């Protein structure tokens, strides 16, 4: 529900901008249509940019050891990173387009681990262990299906606003256990490492965005884009009774080339 509300806000902002664009277009529309440049039927875009959002994930596993359960909790913060996308828009009628864009976001992050390890001699005397698992990879491969409205904001400038569903395939490295060293009398332990597993999950979400393109020639242009997409995914964690939930997607801003046909 929170995610939908966020999308709505973005959508309103975009439509506000589109309104200005539309007004410009209407002014232009007073001139004969034949004088304007022909609308391209196919628009292809490729972008690179940043995804500045921050996503927090937690995972928890339990492992039987010393006649009790060891608990390993890990928190991961996926910070800003770069993304790449490529997509195509096909004009259906007037400014209405339909298209698909595939974006990829990859980021390496650390997992902060806190664990309680049972004492080998006594019940209910856990020892706390903490450490960091580095080099954990997160990968979001998202297919955005878009309904877009393209308007002209000038002779060489197009503005496209879009919205649609997104299919997320998210891969994440999660901590599944720790290794530790200990010695008699075993009142403390020392973190020596973590075992990880690469898990993935699929989920459907939504996207909304805007694209401003400047035509350099009939077939080539450059542009900038913003997009917000979101979903929530459930990662199955080996050794854990419950899945690890995570947000996916977020705000993206970038730019790249545009091809028109």
């Amino acid at each position, binding site marked *: 529900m929170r995610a939908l509300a966020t999308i709505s806000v973005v959508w309103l902002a975009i439509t506000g901008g589109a309104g200005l664009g539309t007004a410009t277009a209407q002014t232009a529309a007073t001139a004969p249509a034949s004088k304007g440049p022909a609308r391209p039927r196919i628009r292809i875009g490729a972008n690179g940019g940043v995804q500045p959002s921050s996503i927090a994930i937690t995972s928890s596993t339990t*492992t039987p*050891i*010393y*006649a009790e359960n060891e608990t390993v909790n890990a928190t991961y913060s996926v910070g800003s990173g770069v993304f790449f996308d490529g997509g195509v828009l096909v004009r259906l009628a007037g400014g209405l387009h339909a298209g698909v864009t595939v974006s990829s976001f990859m980021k390496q992050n650390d997992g902060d681990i806190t664990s309680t390890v049972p004492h*080998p*001699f*006594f*019940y209910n005397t856990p020892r706390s262990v903490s450490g960091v698992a*580095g*080099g954990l990879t997160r990968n979001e491969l998202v297919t955005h299906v878009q309904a877009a409205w393209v308007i002209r904001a000038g002779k060489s400038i197009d503005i496209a606003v879009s919205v649609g569903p997104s299919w997320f395939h998210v891969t994440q*490295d999660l901590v*599944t*256990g720790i*290794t530790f060293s*200990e*010695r*008699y*009398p*075993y009142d403390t332990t020392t973190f020596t*490492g*973590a*075992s*990880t*597993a*690469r898990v993935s999950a699929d989920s459907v979400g939504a996207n909304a965005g805007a694209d401003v393109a400047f035509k350099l020639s009939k077939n080539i242009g450059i542009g900038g884009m913003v997009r917000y997409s979101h979903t929530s995914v459930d990662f199955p964690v*080996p*050794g854990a009774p419950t899945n690890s939930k995570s947000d996916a997607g977020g705000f993206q801003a970038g730019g790249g080339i545009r091809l028109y046909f």
Partner: protein
Amino acid sequence: MRRLASAIGITFVVFFAWHSVREPRTLHAQVRAQTVAPSAPADVRDWDNTASRLLRSGELRVRLQRADTLIPRRTVEQLDQYHRGVRVWGGSLSRQLDDSSAVSVFGLIYAGITLDPTPTLTESDAVAAIERIGGARFSSARRPELVVLPIDDGFKLAWVGELMTRRDVVRYFVDAANGQLLRHYGMLQRQIANASVGHGIGVLGDDKKVSATSSGGAFLASDPLRPPSIVTYDMRGNTGRALDALNGDVALATADVAANGTNNWTDAAVVDAHSYSAYTYDYYFKRFGRRGLDNADHPLRNMVHTVNRSDIFDAPGDILGALYLNAFYCGACAGGTMVYGEGLPGGAYLPSTGQFFDYFSGALDVVAHELTHGVTNYSSNLEYVNESGALNEAFSDIMGTSVEFFFQPPGTGLLRADYLIGEDIARAALPGALDGFRSMSNPALFDQPDHYSKRVVLPPDEDNDNGGVHTNSGIPNHAFYLAIEGGTNRTSGIRVQGVGASNREQIEKVFYRGFTQLMPANATFSVARAVTLRAAQDLYGLNSAPYNAVRDAWTAVGVN
């Protein structure tokens, strides 16, 4: 002649090493491993020359070179074998150099390697294959290495990498041609390979952990987690074998060790003997840094079920007193053995005391008491007669109670720390009877003196408890109690300001130091006073609170 044969051997190996480079496809792949351990100077010189030649050709590479820290001008090199740029797993030489000449060369070199060192699998493929097999991810710090792996019938080009799995670091070798697993083994150098912690139900029905050893699908009451060997033997009612073992006529075997098929231990006598003897070791280590009976991790051997409870009504009197209603530490028995009495059958009580008796291992203070006799044996070796004998007994009660307070919450009743001895296994069966054997807070409850003026003076023989050692121990016991808890001695009326329960560690340390470091074997109560005061002064200073408490406590019980 030997030297000649050895030289031929060297030539043989070098030939194959050289030949494998020049004609890699003509030789059938077959593992030829040459152990290098020349002793004669000429042989060492030959191997030194060979190593230098292989270094120049790239078939050996220096992995490590360091100066010998013990002998001046010595250098040690570790040389790894390579086949066409790929490391040969396990092929290496260690060369010790004195200035420029070799002192020794040791190692293992493979010959007859013909395989093409070009892998079909890329490093990324290998990573994926190993991750798939291991079910875990490579860390960024660990990447696979392409190696030549000697196997039974030849050599395989393999990728080797280490994965951290849920409980181990595992080294995997996968075939560089197809990613199939060739070999794997754990790398974590565990302190304990076969340690297994199980559940156990003690004499009082309490659940505790049992440190056991897994062996052949079963679990043995042999503690592999603590520094000393702690083994609990289950004699299964075979009294003759138990006595023979205690007398040194037979050696106890693995078959005598208490065992369990599931590591869920239900033999309460075994559980408590095994656990409580270990707790006692823990207490001495944590409180005083002492490593067991002799401070050198002397093995702890427990023996339970030396008799059958059901046989008690036919048991001779000496067996009844020794193996049913007693627990003892025998320092001379098979290197030191704790024997725990079997107690009485359910519902039976001892008429003379009006008490039920459970398995003697079920009382932590009793177990710690008996093991402390071992500590005394290895320290002051207090003579077990008269006052020194009473001090010996008292020190065991003092430490037994201290162990109880270390592990159990204070209070009254079962599994609670108090100043009663044996209250968890000797329980009142008749009206007016008491729980336990002795009381340190009120020795008179069990007909012990609480003041030196009331001490018993008996002949120092077995018929008279070696001069009343179990009776007169009430006097130093009560002094220990007063030094901690404070209070008024019932006989002298002298009031003592104790250090308080929260500072009991101070008085425990004073008595430990006095009894194990300063006490002579033939000490009297007066000497005990002097050594504990000296210990208090050493630890906390003259006229410190612990010093004053100990001084006043001895005075209150009439020991000056």
